[in-house]
């Protein structure tokens, strides 16, 4: 194998028009996605949007109704799971209850007929890698949730798969452990260079870990791209609302051809979008909560608003505002907590570049 050449190389995983229906439900409605060697991709979306189904199609547990899946350029659509060069970390780990930790981790090598002594060595190394030295003789039932998670990881990674699939692997852990595992997983992935496809419904988790986020909605891919791009330039209301706190404003084109948001008396001008604009054209603009800042009334385009709620999330405050019937959110650093109180009348403003106009079809 030669090192993959960026861009020009064959994608490691090539998913084309994969569709799967369960009765009337289209769990996957034609999904196409390419994933490159060494990428860390997060499949993100609300519960029921088809993330697990897509992952199970890749792993081979679910046969798609139509479409094609190739790994390394080889069509694997018809291959059973045990012939595919990938491994999975299951949602509830699926550790074998009747085997010890060592037997669980050594399961893959044993299936390939690796000699016992060699398996023992590899198991020790894999357990050391996930920080579980000394746990080999235990049963899964004698481990905490976090430890079980590590065993599941070791059991998959010991096979040195080209591709590792993880289905909400951190979902059952408490917040602190989850944050710690997020970093560990990320480091492990960087060190091993294995491609990770990681399912989560937690946008923060996806942002923390992934090189690229694939946002799914109702069995289709809504948007795919690097975290920063999805955050800054979501392509639809759904994506904008799903990731971070977004203020969505209705924009209407004035006779002069400029898009404006009308809030109370003010009419805020949006930057001109590239696509054709005409009188009466309406679009949606997105403004991140952190783009808003308190202002004085004399600042041009400042909007008057009433504070409805102040939520302190520790380190940051989220100020909910009512601007002439339009709900807005403003995020400030935590030391600003004392500056706001419900019922207070303030002015807020933002720089025009912060307003992202969603593409036309998203309206």
């Amino acid at each position, binding site marked *: 194998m030669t090192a993959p050449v960026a861009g020009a190389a064959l994608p490691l995983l090539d998913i084309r028009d994969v569709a799967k229906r369960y009765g009337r439900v289209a769990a996957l409605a034609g999904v196409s996605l390419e994933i490159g060697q060494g990428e860390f991709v997060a499949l993100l979306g609300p519960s029921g949007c088809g993330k697990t189904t897509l992952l199970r199609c890749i792993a081979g547990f679910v046969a798609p109704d139509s479409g094609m899946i190739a790994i390394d350029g080889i069509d694997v659509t018809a291959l059973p799971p*045990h012939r595919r060069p990938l491994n999975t970390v299951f949602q509830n780990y699926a550790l*074998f209850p009747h085997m010890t930790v060592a037997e669980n981790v050594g399961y893959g090598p044993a*299936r390939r007929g690796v000699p016992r002594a060699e398996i023992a060595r590899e198991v020790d190394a894999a357990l050391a890698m996930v920080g579980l030295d000394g746990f080999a003789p235990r049963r899964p039932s004698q481990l905490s949730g976090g430890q079980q998670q590590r065993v599941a990881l070791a059991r998959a990674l010991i096979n040195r798969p080209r591709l590792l699939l993880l289905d909400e692997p951190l979902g059952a852990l408490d917040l602190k452990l989850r944050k710690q595992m997020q970093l560990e997983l990320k480091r492990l992935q960087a060190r091993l260079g294995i491609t990770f496809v990681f399912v989560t419904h937690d946008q923060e988790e996806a942002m923390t870990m992934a090189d690229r986020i694939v946002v799914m909605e109702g069995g289709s891919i809504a948007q795919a791209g690097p975290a920063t791009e999805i955050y800054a330039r979501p392509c639809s209301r759904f994506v904008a609302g799903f990731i971070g706190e977004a203020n969505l404003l209705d924009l209407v084109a004035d006779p002069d051809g400029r898009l404006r948001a009308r809030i109370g008396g003010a009419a805020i001008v949006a930057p001109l979008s590239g696509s054709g604009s005409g009188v009466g054209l309406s679009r949606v603009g997105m403004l991140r909560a952190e783009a808003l800042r308190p202002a004085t009334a004399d600042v041009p385009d400042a909007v008057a608003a009433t504070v409805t709620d102040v939520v302190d999330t520790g380190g940051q405050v989220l100020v909910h505002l009512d601007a002439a019937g339009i709900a807005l959110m403003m995020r400030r650093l935590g030391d600003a907590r004392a500056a706001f109180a419900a019922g207070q009348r303030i002015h807020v403003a933002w720089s025009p570049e912060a307003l992202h106009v969603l593409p036309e079809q998203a309206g």
Partner: protein
Amino acid sequence: MTRLPAFLGALRRDMPWPLLAAPLLFFAAFFAFPLAVVLVASVTAADGGGLTLAHYARVLLDAYHWDILWLTLRIAFVTTAIAMMLGYPLAYYLVRVVEARWLRRACVVLLVIPLFTSNIVRSFGWMVLLGRVGIVNETLQGAGLIERPIRFLGSETGIVIGLVYILLPFVVLTTGNAIAAIDRRLEEAASDLGAGPAQRFRTIVWPLSLPGLLSGAVIVFTLAVSAYVTPALLSSGRVTVFSMLIYQQYASVFDFHYGGALSVVLLVATLLLLWAAAAIDPTRRRT
């Protein structure tokens, strides 16, 4: 010694007597006490005299009894083995292969009907089937497989056929339960790790269903060892199993001392084998 009163106090305070009084008294009076009476009779002399082990000597020093005990155990072993071999595939088939819910339910009903029907009735069916001019012999002869009718009735084979038939549902139900409880995701995990269908069965399904199979086997074995009706009906008086010896003593010879010793021997043999089965149970969790 000062702890004893405290212990008794704890007994009095913690025992939920209103709930336990009736069941405890009843089981003491009509279960524990009768068994104790048998035990006592087995070690007292027939003339009402003192303690003696003569009855046990009579049972244990007589090769005839050992032959019968061995025959009884052999029948029970063979019955258990066949019931396991037939029961496991059927259980697997019903849980994993049959997809239609109604069909599986119908099969469960068919499995359970024999359990709800007396041993007599079920054994009687086999008497009709296995007789000299029974349908099995007629079919075998008609097909030219045998020339003269095989004597099933009055042979060990006949008894085993009848016992397997009667006890098979226990294996199917316990094993089926265990297979139904296996999380399919474990097999998915195994196949994800490279295991083909045969390996998945050997490494996942088989070890996880083994406890169910074994608990079914224990039920079958204990019931087969102590079965009376089926052997009595299908032996035509030609084969004697241990329970028949006991019955004779209590129902026609009226030697409660000798009968008691026989009962205790059967009881102890059963308990020993159950204990051994529990001790060698390969599925026991190591801790």
